[in-house]
């Protein structure tokens, strides 16, 4: 009984939407078309998000705009707490299983998209998208890598993060280096040249900190320069067989040894807490180059720090992989409709708005400093981001950019194994000679992990 009613509603919606309404979509402008015959009975939909602090007001303003556009829909926003351990996603699973999910969910990251899409905990958006003439590739080639798992398109991106190289132009000029490094060899050479040591050997200014989890440098980000892939075509982990991984780890080892592990760890410890405050190492001239996300440009603009003449560029690629100069890791906030949502059709309107409404994307990009995810928003004249931001727009648009680590139907918890490996590798617990065998063990662990996830 309920099912047929839902079917009828959605066919009605599809008919109506196909008739050309749906304002603010990326493909067409919102004017013209026959009068909208959306179901306009007043309804309240529930939204879960985590926008708080100074990011709360811009978001609330955007929601008000939505309600002006769709006056019969009232949004009840439940701002979820955001402690260091992710509680948003487990709570969402609880709510779905308990039968009272929100209508729209907006987590800050796609770590659970495997469970959402392949597991069916979020609804498949394909029918809605088709009716509105929207495809995932309207956003960028990389969008599908973190919104679609197991063939199910259950989420849309809403602003995103993109990563690249930040470098201190003044330091480069002083050291006589013409431009940012384009290859990993150049990166190593420049890092060494730009490093300044204290008389006692400790590091005063680091050229480039090669340690895992320095700011945003994640496991796999260095290996990306060699186009190293986590899984082969049959889905087996291949960190031991894909030569890019070993090359990346050896590169890292060389630079760590050059610094001296103790020195670089002390430098790491002294500065790791300052990633998000104005004592940030890069902003204060303590680091010459770093791998970071696009929001750093907004921070640099807003924070108080000594004058910083900086540039951005794509992160260097290995000399034998020039095609990897340009793409990088991307990914960020996603929106979707949980299974069992009481008002999925109205929820879709909000999802579409948050994913593709140009004004929303532009306003949030300006205030929060994230990458606007649609071509329309990127070319909007209202966009007021620093010139260094362009690098990240290109990274997002690059067809080889992707979310990492790759999502699987059981999520991407398996990447913890690489974090642990890096921990041991960096500290020298694993020697050069053992690298290959330890990588093979790592592969085995990841396989076991995924096998257990799939179950006997």
């Amino acid at each position, binding site marked *: 009984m309920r099912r047929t009613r839902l079917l009828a509603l959605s066919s009605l919606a599809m008919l109506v939407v196909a008739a050309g309404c749906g304002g603010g979509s990326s493909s067409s402008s919102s004017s013209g078309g026959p009068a909208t015959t959306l179901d306009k009975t007043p309804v309240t939909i529930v939204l879960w998000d985590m926008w708080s602090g100074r990011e709360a007001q811009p978001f609330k303003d955007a929601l008000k705009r939505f309600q002006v556009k769709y006056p019969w829909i009232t949004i009840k926003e439940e701002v979820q707490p955001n*402690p*260091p*351990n*992710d509680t948003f*996603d*487990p709570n969402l*699973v609880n709510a779905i*299983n308990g039968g009272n999910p929100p209508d729209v969910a907006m987590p800050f990251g796609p*770590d659970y998209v495997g*469970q959402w899409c392949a*597991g*069916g*905990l979020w609804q498949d958006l394909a029918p809605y998208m088709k009716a509105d003439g929207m495809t995932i590739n309207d956003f960028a080639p990389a969008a599908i890598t973190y919104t679609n798992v197991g063939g199910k398109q259950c989420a849309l991106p809403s602003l995103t993060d993109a990563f690249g190289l930040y470098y201190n132009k003044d330091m480069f000029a002083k050291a006589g280096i013409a431009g940012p490094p384009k290859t990993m060899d150049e990166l190593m050479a420049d890092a060494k040249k730009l490093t300044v040591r204290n008389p006692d050997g400790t590091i005063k200014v680091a050229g480039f900190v090669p340690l*895992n*989890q320095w700011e945003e440098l994640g496991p796999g980000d260095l290996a990306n320069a060699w186009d190293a892939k986590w899984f082969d075509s049959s889905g087996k982990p291949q960190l031991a067989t894909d030569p890019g991984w070993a090359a990346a780890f050896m590169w890292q080892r060389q630079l760590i040894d050059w610094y001296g592990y103790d020195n670089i*760890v*002390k*430098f*790491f*410890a*002294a500065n*790791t*807490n300052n990633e998000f405050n104005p004592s940030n190492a890069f902003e204060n001239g303590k680091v010459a180059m770093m791998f970071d996300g696009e929001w750093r440009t907004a921070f640099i603009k807003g924070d108080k720090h000594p004058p910083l003449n900086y540039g951005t560029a794509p992160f260097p690629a290995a000399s034998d992989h020039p095609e990897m100069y340009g793409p990088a890791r991307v990914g960020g906030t996603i929106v979707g409709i949980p299974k069992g949502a009481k008002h999925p059709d109205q929820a879709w309107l909000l999802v579409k708005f948050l994913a593709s409404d140009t004004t929303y994307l532009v306003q949030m990009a300006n205030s929060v400093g994230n990458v606007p995810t649609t071509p329309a928003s990127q070319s909007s004249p209202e966009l007021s981001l620093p010139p260094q931001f362009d690098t990240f727009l290109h990274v997002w648009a690059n067809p080889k950019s992707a979310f990492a680590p790759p999502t699987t139907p*059981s*999520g991407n*918890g398996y990447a*913890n*194994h690489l*974090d*642990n490996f*890096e*921990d*041991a590798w960096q*500290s020298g*617990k694993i020697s050069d000679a053992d690298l290959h065998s330890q990588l093979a063990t790592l592969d*085995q*662990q990841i396989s*076991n*992990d995924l*096998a*257990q*996830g799939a*179950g*006997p």
Partner: protein
Amino acid sequence: MLLFLSPWIFGFVVFTAGPMLLSLYYSFTHYDLISSPRWIGLDNYRYMIGKLTLNGQPNQGDPYFGTAVRNTIWIIVVGLPLRIVFAIATAMLLTRPKRGVNGYRTLFFMPSMAPTVGASLVFVYLFNPVTGPINQFLGHLGINGPLWFFDPTWAKPALVVLGLWGIGDAIVLYLAGLLNVPRDLYEAISVEGANAWQRFRYVTFPMLTPVIFFTLIIGIIDGFQYFDQAYVSATTTGNGVGSPQNSLLFYSVWLYEQAFTYFHMGYAAAMAWILFIATMVLTAILLLTSRRWVHYGGGLS
């Protein structure tokens, strides 16, 4: 008797027994919180000890189970006795002065009130090997401070210090216990010319044993479920959960990861029940042997 017990019986049956039994059931299933649980018998337990065969392939099993167990045992064996000793000593200090005791007591108690997330973050900053005051102070003394949360050998000791900082609640209990000691016992023994140590050994300590027993059992139960501080300090300083190098991967932390990051709810349930059995056995032993060393009854010995 039954009337007196009835609130607890009702609560147990309605709120506790159901979820407990259900989690036992989950431990024999493959349950990913998405589809219905699927019965797999003892496979979760086999995975735990690395004796599982999946699809004809021997599976290495859980690589971190042993580490999680070892870390948890360490923090209990090292941390709990220190806590008890320190709490008794501090409580005894508080029985001495005549004035201002209320104030001191409140000050000692305050840290245990601090929200665990905030407290953990503060300690991470205090123990920062370069910018934190602890190492700076050690530097003034000419000691090259360790890397604390950035060194696998020193991360757990730092957490032990955090635990000692928060013993306000134990101090309150021991204070209650100390003040409960009948004064005439002390008078009787000093008439015989006993010194301070003998007073402690023959009067104070025996009278404190009920409280010690309590904090011992609760300490073990809580220790096995130690989570917040470990999770926050590991994720704030470095390479994710359990870092550095899995030194902070406690049983409860790993369980949480299995349940809510990996969605291996069946396996997490298996881990939970193994923990339960271990705690139960330990507690039963302590309970049964308690008659030997715990001294109840307010009468003279």
